[in-house]
């Protein structure tokens, strides 16, 4: 039991220490990979610790809740730490080989500092049980994300990065104003204590809920504040896009779920929750339609991120206040986020390989991929299963849980959204996959074989999620209320 705090500290400290060290050109790759392995080991250790002993709350600096900051390692945090590790490490291995071949060339070592800052920020965010500490961790994550977007220094990437930075700043400050309202009203910043205090649900608390959620909408690129995401994720190099779409967007969405599960459980009546669900549904539909209308490969996948994130919001109107994380709607939302992280990362890595091989980003470049680069084509296909929510993928298991919750709760309209979203996803996935099986004479530069297998492995992980749904829900059950 006493080792858990050290593991938690290591999960944050290892990437933080490695980040400045990776500034050194020669060591960068080695330091990053070593730190990656270390952090992944810590994350796996934490998942096992939670599965064995249940949730662990650790007061930083030895100061208990109201005064100090408390790390709240529950089932949800452990799963997200493991997801971040199991997505980031393969992406790091992929980047080591693929970035020198891309636009960055000799400057590929510039990928490592933002990569490590991002990973550290994510781990600090998932562990944190303090709303102001979440703000600082989110700032570190957003800063690292903008660095990843503007890595190649081209005009389009710089414009997208600037737009992303401004929206992230606006979102962070709106979130912070909400935190200020909570502190002024309840005098504490700890999520557990706020859960009890915010039950009164008066005007300042409701205003805080709307402000914080609005700020996080901007950071998670949820409809209607999603405009910055496609150019940003589209113009980043492939491994960076995989991290951005897989983990960064999920992190901000996680905070929304954490807030609406704990702090704002009793705040704002049904209309506010239905409104949030409606925004999520609108995001699903609108994002999928935009994904259908794109010509560039990366843009289609980036819009698909906006669409898939919309599903997470469906958990808010469906969840009964007293439920814990393993209840259907919450477990469905978390599982979808995790499966989407793997699937989206796999898709961006695969498209990165295709763009490298064919030299251009249009959907037309997919022609003949199935014959020349079969492993990459299958990676995209398998990842597509999760996006469409077809059995036996993780996406299917998640949507099934959400469907079951919606049906048993009598809110049938969410069922329509889930099915409609699945059909639209099928449309834009097949739009990409279709040309892959046609014949094409275009000469393709064969990417290194192991890179293709990394992409397929990630896609298979999202598939495995579907099969191994039960253990995941069991770990989630270890959370109990945030108290």
């Amino acid at each position: 039991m006493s080792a858990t705090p050290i593991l938690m500290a290591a999960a944050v400290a290892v990437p933080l220490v490695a980040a400045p060290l990776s500034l050194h050109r020669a060591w960068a790759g080695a330091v990053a990979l070593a730190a990656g392995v270390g952090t992944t080991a810590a994350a796996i250790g934490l998942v096992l610790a939670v599965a064995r002993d249940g949730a662990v709350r650790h007061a930083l600096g030895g100061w208990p809740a109201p005064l100090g900051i408390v790390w709240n390692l529950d089932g949800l945090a452990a799963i997200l730490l493991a997801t971040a590790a199991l997505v980031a490490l393969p992406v790091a291995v992929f980047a080591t080989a693929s970035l020198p071949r891309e636009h960055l060339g000799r400057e590929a070592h510039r990928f490592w500092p933002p990569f490590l800052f991002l990973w550290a920020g994510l781990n600090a965010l998932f562990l944190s049980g303090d709303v102001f500490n979440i703000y600082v961790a989110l700032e570190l994550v957003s800063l690292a994300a903008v660095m990843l977007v503007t890595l190649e220094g081209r005009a389009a990437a710089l414009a997208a990065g600037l737009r992303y930075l401004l929206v992230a700043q606006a979102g962070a400050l709106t979130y912070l104003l909400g935190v200020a309202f909570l502190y002024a009203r309840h005098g504490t910043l700890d999520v557990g204590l706020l859960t009890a205090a915010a039950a009164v649900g008066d005007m300042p608390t409701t205003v805080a809920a709307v402000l914080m959620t609005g700020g996080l909408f901007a950071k998670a690129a949820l409809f209607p504040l999603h405009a910055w995401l496609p150019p940003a994720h589209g113009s980043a190099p492939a491994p960076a896009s995989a991290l951005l779409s897989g983990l960064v967007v999920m992190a901000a969405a996680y905070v929304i779920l954490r807030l609406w599960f704990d702090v704002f459980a009793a705040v704002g009546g049904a209309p506010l929750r239905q409104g949030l669900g409606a925004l999520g549904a609108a995001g699903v539909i609108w994002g999928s339609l935009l994904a259908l209308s794109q010509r560039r490969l990366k843009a289609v996948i980036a819009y698909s991120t906006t669409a898939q994130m919309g599903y997470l919001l469906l958990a808010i109107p469906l969840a009964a206040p007293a439920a814990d994380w393993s209840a259907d709607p919450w477990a469905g939302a978390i599982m979808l986020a995790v499966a989407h992280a793997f699937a989206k990362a796999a898709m961006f890595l695969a498209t990165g390989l295709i763009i490298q091989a064919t030299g251009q980003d249009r959907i037309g470049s997919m022609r003949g991929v199935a014959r020349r680069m079969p492993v990459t084509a299958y990676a995209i296909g398998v990842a597509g299963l999760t996006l469409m929510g077809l059995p036996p993928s993780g996406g299917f298991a998640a949507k099934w849980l959400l469907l079951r919750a919606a049906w048993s709760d009598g809110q049938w309209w969410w069922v329509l959204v889930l099915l409609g979203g699945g059909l639209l996803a099928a449309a834009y996935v097949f739009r990409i996959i279709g040309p892959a099986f046609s014949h094409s004479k275009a000469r393709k530069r064969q990417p290194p074989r192991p890179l293709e297998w990394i992409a397929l492995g990630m896609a298979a992980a999202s598939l495995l999620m579907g099969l191994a749904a039960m253990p995941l829900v069991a770990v989630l059950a270890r959370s109990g209320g945030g108290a």
Partner: protein
Amino acid sequence: MMLLIDGAVAVGLVWMALRALNARRLTEAVIVFIGFTGVMALAWVRLRAPDLALAEAAVGAGVLVVVLLDGLGRLAHLLGGRTPLRAAAVVLLPLLSLALVAVLLRALGDLPSAATGLGPRVFAALEQSGVENPVTAVLLNFRGFDTLLEVFVLLGAAVAVALLRPLDRALPRGAGPITAGPPQTPMADWYRRRLLPVALLVAVYLLWAGGSAPGGAFQAGSLLAGVLALGLLTGTPLAGRPAAAWAAAAIGPVAFVLAALLFAVGGHGVLQYPPGWAKAAILGLESLLTVSIAAALTLLVIGIPRRRRP
């Protein structure tokens, strides 16, 4: 009488913000913004937060203004006149923001009059924190993890600016003093011999005083950064290789996070100072943080070298 002064400062802040945001010419906007940060420092004094007044003056009015003016200078050739507002938004959004203000003020009114803050708890636990200044106690002991992440955000920003260097010009490895300003001016050597030592002395005082009076790592660090930037702008070459500057910028944050880890390994909690060692540990960490904050802010101010004129 006091309400009058505070009212004047509050209204002045809002008026200057409006002027800065809606100024006709960009240079005018930046100049008024500089005034705004100055009055903000005054507002912090009126709110009985001397630490914040120092930080705002040193970081906000100091480093940020240097960066904005430098940005303004380099964008000079691009300065279009008054950029037109988009017609559709001009009508709708102001109404929306007025509604937002109304709702927020209404919620402000609902807040309990008696503050329910954590002040009493902080003062109760103050003597175990190892320092007398309550703000420093919160920053480095009670909520030390916030500060830890914050100094990494600052270091990250400095790294981010360095990564903006165009791809065809790799990060400099070789030796070579870091200078940003024009060639040596006659004042440069006078400056180096007299003003620099005095500034260093004030910075050390601020750092030391941070334990008991307003001051601390951030104020001392940003003062040092301002002094270093002024030195560079006078063409005073800063001896030492860029790698040394990065090592200085990273030493504070890395030491802080390693200390947090070591305390955990040593049987105490994460970031929990061993009993009796709090004062020494905090002072040590603060001095390293001062060096790192100064280095990071200076790297931010020096900013990125421009693309060579093609």
